[in-house]
C-alpha cells in the first residue's frame, strides 16, 4: 500500500498546529522510520494515518485513493501503540487473536495463528495471563504480536521495542524486518533508537514541531544532514559543534575556529560568494575524530571527562570554551586535564549557517532510488 500525506494539518486547540502542512510519501512495501524530538507529532501523524484522528485539513491517500473518511477498521492496519493499549480484560492469547476475530477467522485457526505469533515474540508460556500480570516488556511484546498477527497491509509501530532488553530487541527487530520483507508490508516505525532506525528503515523522515525536515535514506541523512537541526539530532552520540566564522579571501574560502583555520573551498563548498564573513557551526561526528595528528584538520584540547562504555572510551575534550566528544580505544590511558590532539578528515566536516541553520556543504546531487 502506498501512503501519501498531502498538506496534512492537525491542531488540538485553536492556538497552534501540532502537525503543520505535512507532506510525506511512503511507497508500497517501503519501511520508513519517523524520527524527531519528543512531542514533535510523530504519534499524532501515525494516528492520522490510522484514521483515529481526522486531519483539520489535508488528505491521506492509500494507493492514490483519498481515505480521509475511511474508518480505521477498513484500512487494514496493524499498530503498536506507544502505550501498548492492550485490552485489560482479555488474556494474552485473546489479545493477540482479537484482530483475527474481527476478520471472522474461525476460532481454531485464529488461536493457532495467535499462538504462533506469541511464540515469535517469546510469550508462548504466558498465554493465559491478563495484561495486568505482565511485566512492561512482556506487555509490549503482546502489543507487537497483536499488530502483526493479521498480516496487515500497513504496519504502524510507535516505539514497539522501547521496553525490551538489548538482546530481545535485536531478535524482535529481525522478526519485524523479516515479516515486513516477506509480506511487503508498508511500515512506519517511530523509534528513539537511531541504530534501530538506521538498520531497519529504507528511508527516515525527520520531524520537528510538526514539520517534515528531511526525508532521505539513512546514510544520506547521516552523512548529508540538510540543516543544523538534523545534524545535531541524528547520530548517537550527537555530532560535535564548534562555532566558527566563514570568510572568503582571494576566492578561497576558509573557516576560522579560534586559532584554527580550515581551508574549505572545493572540498566542501560549491562556491562561496559571500563578501562578508559569516558565522557558521562546524560539525564533526565523534566517530570521525581520531587520536592522531596526521589528518586534514588538527584540533587541540584538554581531556575533561572520560567515560568507559566497554568497547571504547568516550572522552569529552575542551576546545577553547567549547566541548567536543570523541571515542578512544579502550586500551589507551588518558588523564584528566592532559592535552590531547584530535584529527579529522576534511570530508567529515559539516558546515551550517549559524543564522538559518542551513547546511552550506556541497552535496553531490544524488537521488535515492528505493528498490
Amino acid at each position, binding site marked *: 500500500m502506498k501512503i501519501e500525506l498531502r498538506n496534512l494539518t492537525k491542531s488540538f486547540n485553536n492556538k497552534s498546529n501540532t502537525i503543520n502542512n505535512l507532506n510525506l510519501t511512503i511507497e508500497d512495501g517501503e519501511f520508513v522510520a519517523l524520527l524527531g524530538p519528543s512531542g514533535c507529532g510523530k504519534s499524532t501523524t501515525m494516528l492520522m494515518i490510522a484514521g*483515529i484522528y481526522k486531519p483539520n485539513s489535508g488528505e491521506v491517500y492509500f494507493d492514490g485513493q483519498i481515505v480521509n*473518511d475511511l474508518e480505521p477498521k477498513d484500512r487494514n492496519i496493524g499498530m503498536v501503540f506507544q502505550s501498548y493499549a492492550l485490552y485489560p480484560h482479555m488474556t494474552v492469547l485473546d489479545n493477540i487473536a482479537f484482530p483475527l476475530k474481527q476478520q471472522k477467522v474461525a476460532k481454531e485457526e485464529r488461536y493457532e495463528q495467535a499462538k504462533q505469533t506469541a511464540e515469535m515474540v517469546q510469550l508462548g508460556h504466558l498465554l493465559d495471563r491478563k495484561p*495486568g500480570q505482565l511485566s512492561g516488556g512482556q506487555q509490549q511484546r503482546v502489543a507487537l504480536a497483536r499488530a502483526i498477527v493479521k498480516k496487515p497491509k500497513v504496519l504502524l509501530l510507535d516505539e514497539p521495542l522501547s521496553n525490551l532488553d538489548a538482546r530481545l530487541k535485536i531478535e524482535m527487530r529481525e522478526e519485524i524486518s523479516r515479516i515486513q520483507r516477506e509480506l511487503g508490508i508498508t511500515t512506519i516505525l517511530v523509534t528513539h533508537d537511531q541504530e534501530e532506525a538506521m538498520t531497519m528503515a529504507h528511508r527516515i523522515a525527520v520531524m520537528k514541531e510538526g514539520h517534515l525536515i528531511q526525508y532521505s535514506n539513512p546514510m544520506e541523512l547521516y552523512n548529508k544532514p540538510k540543516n543544523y537541526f538534523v545534524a545535531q539530532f541524528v547520530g548517537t552520540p550527537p555530532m560535535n559543534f564548534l562555532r566558527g566564522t566563514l570568510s572568503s579571501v582571494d576566492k578561497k574560502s576558509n573557516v576560522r575556529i579560534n586559532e584554527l583555520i580550515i581551508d574549505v573551498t572545493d572540498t566542501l563548498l560549491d562556491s562561496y560568494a559571500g563578501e562578508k564573513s559569516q558565522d557558521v557551526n562546524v560539525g564533526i561526528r565523534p566517530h570521525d575524530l581520531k587520536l592522531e595528528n596526521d589528518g586534514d584538520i588538527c584540533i587541540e584540547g584538554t581531556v575533561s571527562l572520560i567515560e568507559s562504555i566497554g568497547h571504547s572510551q568516550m572522552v569529552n575534550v575542551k576546545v577553547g570554551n567549547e566541548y567536543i566528544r570523541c571515542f578512544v580505544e579502550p586500551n589507551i590511558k588518558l588523564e584528566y586535564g592532559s592535552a590531547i590532539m584530535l584529527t579529522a578528515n576534511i570530508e567529515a566536516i559539516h558546515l551550517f549557517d549559524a543564522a538559518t541553520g542551513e547546511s552550506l556543504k556541497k552535496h553531490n546531487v544524488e537521488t535515492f532510488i528505493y528498490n
Partner: protein
Amino acid sequence: MGTVLKRWKFPAIMLGPFVILIFLFFFLPVILIAIIAFTNMDSAMNWTFNGLTNFHKLVTDPNIVQIIKNTVLYLGFTLLINVGFGLALGILTTYFVQKESVGLVFRTIWMLPRISPPVVYALLWLWFFDPSAYGVLNSLRALVHMSPVDWLTTHPMTAIILANGVIGASYGMIIFSSAIKSIPRDLFQAAMVDGASHWAIIRDIIVPAVRWPLMFVTLWQFLSLLTSYEYILLLTKGGPLFDSEVLALYSFHSAFKNFEFGYGAAVSLVLVIVALLFSFVMWKFFRMEKMLGSSKIE
C-alpha cells in the same frame, strides 16, 4: 449530506432509545403537569383552567412556612448523610478493607435497608424508636435509668433524617465503591511512593477520581430528596400535625388524598422551580461542563 448522516448515525443509534423513552414518558408528562398546574383538575378529571388560583392558594396556605422549613432541614441533613457517609462507606469498604470478601460483607449489610420492602424498613425504625420501654433507643435509656421517650413525636425530623440517611448512604456506597474499584492500582502505588498518607490518597486520588459520581450523587440525591416522601409517609405521615410534612409529601397529599390534581401539580411545579435554581447553582459550582471532555476519536 452524506457526511452529516454519517456523523449523526452513531450518536443517533446510541441515544435514540434513550431520547425517545424520555421524551414520551418523562418530558411530555412534565409538560402536561405544567399545564395541569393551571387547572382545577380534581376527581372528575376535567381540565378547567383557573389561572393562578392554585399558586395563590399555595402562598396563603397557613402551613407553608413550616413545610418549607421542614423541607430545608430534611434536605440538608439527609443529603449530608447520603453523600458524606456514603462516600465514607465506599472508601472504608474498598480502600481500607482490603479483603474483597470482608468489604462485600459490609456492603451487603448496608444494602439490606435498601432491599427491604419500605414498609418493613419503616417498621424496623418504628421498632427502633418505639415509645415504649422496649424500643431500642428507650431500652438503651433504661440502662442508665432514664424514662422512655416518644421519639417519633418529639423528634420526628431527626428520625426521618436518620432513616432516609441510612438508605441513601447505601446508594452512595454502591456507586462510590464501584468507582473506587475502577481506579488503576498503580495510581495508589505512585501516591504511596510519593509520600501520601491515607488521608492524602483519599483527598487527592480517590475523591478526584470519583468526582463525577460524587457530583452526580449529590445532585441526584438532592433532587430525589426534594421530591421524595415515601419514608416520611410511612414513619410519621408528615406528623405530628405538620411537624414533618415536606413539600413533596404535601404535593402527594393534595393530589392523591384530596384529589386536587391541579393543586398538587402546582406544588410540584414550585418544587421544580426550587430544584432548577439549585441544580443550576450546583452545575456551575461543580463545573460540570468541564467534565464533558471532547472526543478523542474523530
